[in-house]
Every structure is written in C-alpha cells, then in structure tokens.
C-alpha cells in the first residue's frame, strides 16, 4: 500500500478505535439525533399522503443538524493533544489526514442517519413509491457532500472566535445546492418520480468539492 493511503488508513483506524473506546461523542450524538427526530415529528404531523411530499426535506434538515453537531467536535481531540502541530512538522501529506477525517466523520454521521431513518419511517408512516435502493445512493452522496465540506470548514474555524457557530455559518450557504439536490432527489424517489438530474448534480458536486478541498487542505492546515 502506498504511503499516503497507509497513513490515511492508520489515522482513520486510530480515530475509530479512540471513539469506540471512549464513546465521547457517540452517546450524546445518538441521543441528540433521537431528540431531533422526535421534535420534528411533533412539529410536523402530516397524513401519510402529505408525509411523502415533505419527508425528504424534514429528514435532511434533521440529518443536517445532527451532522453539524457531530462535525463540531471533529477536530476537538486533535486540538486538545496538539496533534495538529505534530502533523504539520511530520512529512505526512496533509491530504491523508483530511481524507481520514472525512471518512471517519462519514462513518459516524452514517451511523446517526441509520439510527434516525427507521424512526422517521415509523413516525411518518413512510412508504417509498420509487425504488428504495436509490434512496440509499442519495443518502451516501448527500452525506458525503455535507461531511467533506463540514470537515474542511471545521478545520478553518479552529482559530476563530465562536468556533461552534462558525461551522454552520460557513457550511450552510455553500451546501445549499447540494441540500436542494438531496431533498429534491429524496422527495422524487419517494413519490416514484425520476431523480436522475439531482443525482447527477450531487455526484458532480461531490467530485468537485472533494477535489478542491483536498487541494486546499494543505494550505488551510498550515495557515490555521
């Protein structure tokens, strides 16, 4: 395995192992996700027919909030233990760290989503008219879009005042096209319509922003 890929793997495994052992963030995140689902279900109580129209939007907004809370602590461990300084002076490529962080966050947020989805289905009596596997594709693409930008902006916000609010301030505007695409794709699939355009848009968005974030991360890491 080439060196950068090896470093990515090692960093990712380290993060996963640390998280598994301490369950620092996991437990509170899981409970937060549950709370979000419940609050949304109380606030919007549609009939089964209506729910198919609005569920896409509701689910993704809930995922978005859960993701932001998860992303906010993504670099916390690194700051606490001066890991970033060590990384900067090591010859390891910055991209490997970034990719490891993104994949780790992706796994984490996916777990949260996997928990929230059955609850949404139950509370909203959701049944998809279109093929359900397509929803999974949208979920993967959409989550990646949020996580790749979120990890990048979280790194950018490290030395700002009001760090926690800075992340959503930066993330939301730039993610708007992706959020529109995720929501529209989900709604379209739930209602048995075609979602090809939105999926293509999501794939393109993911490719472009992953590339640019990878290119710029080194600059941000050293600037930060």
């Amino acid at each position, binding site marked *: 395995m080439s060196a950068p890929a090896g470093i990515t793997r090692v960093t990712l495994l380290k993060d996963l192992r640390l998280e598994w052992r301490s369950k620092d963030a996991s437990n509170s995140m899981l409970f937060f996700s549950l709370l979000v689902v419940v609050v949304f279900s109380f606030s919007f109580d549609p009939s089964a027919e209506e729910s198919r129209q609005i569920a896409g939007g509701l689910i993704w907004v809930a995922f978005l909030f859960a993701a932001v809370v998860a992303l906010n602590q993504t670099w916390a461990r690194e700051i606490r233990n001066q890991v970033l300084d060590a990384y900067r002076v090591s010859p390891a490529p910055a991209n490997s760290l970034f990719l490891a962080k993104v994949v780790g966050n992706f796994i984490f947020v996916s777990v949260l989503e996997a928990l929230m989805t059955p609850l949404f289905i139950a509370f909203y009596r959701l049944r998809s008219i279109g093929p359900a596997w397509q929803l999974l594709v949208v979920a993967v693409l959409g989550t990646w879009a949020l996580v790749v*930008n979120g990890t*990048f902006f979280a790194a*950018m916000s490290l*030395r*700002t*005042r*009001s760090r926690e609010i*800075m992340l959503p*301030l*930066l993330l*939301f*505007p*730039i993610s*708007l*096209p*992706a959020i*529109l*695409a995720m929501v*529209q794709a989900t709604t379209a699939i739930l209602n048995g319509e075609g979602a090809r*355009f*939105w999926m293509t*848009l999501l794939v*393109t*968005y993911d490719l*472009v*922003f992953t590339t*640019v*974030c990878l290119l*710029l991360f080194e*600059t*941000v890491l050293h*600037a*930060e």
Partner: protein
Amino acid sequence: MKRLFPILGVVTAALLVYALYMALIGAPTEQTMGNVQRIFYYHVPSAWTAFVLFFVNFGASLVYLVKRKAAADMVALVSAEVGVVFCTVVLVTGPIWARPVWGIWWTWDMRLTSTLVLWLIYVSYLFLRRFSSSGETPTLAAALAVLGALCVPFVYFSIWFFRTQHPQPVMGGGGSIDPRMLHVLLINWLAFSCFAFLVCWSRYRLEKLQREVDQAHALESLMAPRGSVR
C-alpha cells in the same frame, strides 16, 4: 494617482445625478407597470455591479493563494464588502418592486434565489474575516472565496432545474427592452460601477493605513524595553 481620486469623485457624482434624472424622469414610463417599474434602474445595475465585484473577489483570492501578496488580499476584502452592500440593495429593491406589481414579497424563482445564496456565501466570507483571529486569516478567507465561487454554477444549475420542475412567477421578466430604457439602464450601470470603484478605492486606502498602523503598534510593543510597555 492620488489626484485622480477627487476628479473621479466629481465625475461619478455627475454621472449619478444624470443617471438618477434619467431613471426617474427621463426614461419612458413602462406600459403595464407604470412608474413602479423605475426601480428596475436600481435593481438591475446593482445586481450587475455585485456580480462583477464578486468576480473580482474570486480573482483576487486566487492571486493571493498563488502569490501571497497583501494587495491581493486587500482587494479581495474590499470587493467582498462592497459587493455584499450592492447585493443587499438587489435583495431589498426586488421585493419592493415585486409587491405592488405581482402582489408578493418573495418567491423562490431563479434569479432571487441564486442572488440570495450568493449573498449568504459572501456574508459568511465576511464573518470568517471578522471572527478569525489567526494571522493567517487572508489565506483561510481566500480558500473560502474559491470554494464559494466554485459553488455558484451549482447554485444556478440546481435552482434552474428546480424552477423548471416547479414553475413560479418570474420576477424581472424576460423579453425585449425598449432601446431608450436600455440606454438608461446602461447609464445607471456605468454610474454605479464608478461609484463602486470609488468606494472600493477609498476602503482599500483605509485598510492599507489600518494595517500599517497595526504593524507599527506591533513593532513598537516588540521593540519596547522590558517593563516599559504602555
């Protein structure tokens, strides 16, 4: 160079007066909308000016990322600030125009939505500038500006398709424009552009001075003998 500023100021003032006259009195009254339509002469040139300024911001940010010149960073900052102001004008004049004409304050049509998203992106850029306390703010901001600018085509495509699927009233209308109105529109755009340039220049000089003062203070603190820092 410094002498050019007051000359440009006078020219801009004259242009603005002329443009105002033409917009409010000189231009022919629109057939269907009447005099309310005249806000168009503020709405559209502001939009164009904002887009140009945001493009300048993108260019300056790229230059900064490659060359790390302080001048590029200041141009980026200045163009973002003034661009946000003009974009705010667009977002405020739009609903003011729409309400009497279409009866609604807002709609998620292509132009309005994309302008709103653009405004949000650049306001977040200004927030990063304001809240970031590290000495490397220019680099971080430049990276954000590049990402924001890359987002723009996605915004356009996504909203275009969204609106094709869910048609809504279109603000601003398409169609041809009377050549006399086009003339007034262009005059206003010229006046606004000159004004924007003037404000940017002024703000640039202010920023340059501010940085020189800050550097002088920092140097003074460093050089002061121990125990006597004010």
